[in-house]
């Protein structure tokens, strides 16, 4: 087979490979689509939730397409992000049950708690990786923040920053403790 034909075949094979990775990324991003759909159903600010949802789905597809550590973080980060994404729903319930407590207080509180839970869960998974830790943490942080934003960004800047504070409070100690435990005495 001539060199040019072999080169064309290689290009076709590469295209087939990349397209199949993209299709697989879309298929495996169904949890991101589901979470975005759930948050849209009770969202106060539809435009904001739609934007967060689209960014979340696009990031999930992109990272899964990329693969390796970038893609491996997507599912655990998304699962960890369910807590802060749905936490504001709990805040709204609290507001009705305890009308004396203002939304700003309850919403910040649930976003902090949601962030701690999400950060802790993701940190627990992230500590397992010895190699390719940075891509895993970066892609995980992107997905976790976008997933959490589906809920906490609706609470405004306070909710969003409370969530981020929760991620740090929950995630860093867990990563540090697990990493030390794995290294041993």
């Amino acid at each position: 087979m001539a060199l040019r034909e072999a080169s064309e075949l290689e290009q076709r094979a590469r295209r087939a490979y990349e397209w199949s990775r993209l299709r697989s990324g879309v298929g495996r991003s169904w949890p991101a689509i589901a979470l975005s759909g759930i948050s849209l159903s009770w969202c106060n600010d539809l435009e904001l939730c739609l934007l967060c949802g689209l960014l979340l789905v696009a990031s999930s597809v992109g990272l899964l397409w990329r693969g390796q550590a970038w893609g491996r973080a997507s599912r655990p980060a998304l699962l960890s992000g369910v807590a802060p994404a749905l936490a504001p729903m709990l805040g709204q319930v609290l507001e009705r049950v305890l009308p004396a407590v203002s939304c700003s207080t309850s919403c910040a509180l649930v976003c902090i708690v949601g962030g701690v839970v999400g950060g802790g869960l993701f940190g627990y998974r992230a500590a397992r990786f010895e190699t390719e830790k940075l891509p895993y943490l970066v892609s995980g942080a992107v997905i976790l923040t976008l997933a959490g934003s589906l809920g906490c960004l609706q609470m405004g800047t306070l909710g969003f920053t409370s969530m981020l504070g929760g991620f740090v409070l929950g995630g860093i100690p867990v990563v540090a403790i697990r990493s030390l435990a794995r290294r041993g005495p």
Partner: protein
Amino acid sequence: MTRLADGDRAAFPLLFAALWPMLRRFTLHALENAADSEDAAQSALLKVFARAVEFDPGRAALPWILAIAANECRTLRKRTARRREEPIDALVNAPHDKGELEQLVLDCDLERAAREVLQELCPHDIETILAAIGGELSERPDVAPATFRKRLQRAYERLRATWRARHGAS
């Protein structure tokens, strides 16, 4: 293969360079002519890379790849066999008397049935039987006559068993 399934693009050129010659040799051995084998090898190669993302790292890569290539060879063989069959219309329109026409149709059906059964055998058996009956497709393998007779006997046994399974008659 595992690296490529994981998304390591650096594995792509290495895998391509290893797979392409191997698939060409495999399909050339399995099929009757160089043009068909080239088509089958290309289809198989594209399918392997399109399905690389589904590859399970727990299994061996080579049997997985060869199974895809064997499937492409089978598909191409069936397509080629269908093209080779003479349409019944041509027989009907040709000037024959009724008895001759019936015999021609029966012969066509028998030949089609024989080809279908032959294609269900493994490439090794097909090669052996074709070498025995001669013709443009035959090329006697370079083995001792006694070995070739034994191979032929086994190939015929498997052919008979496949015929019985398909048509219920010996």
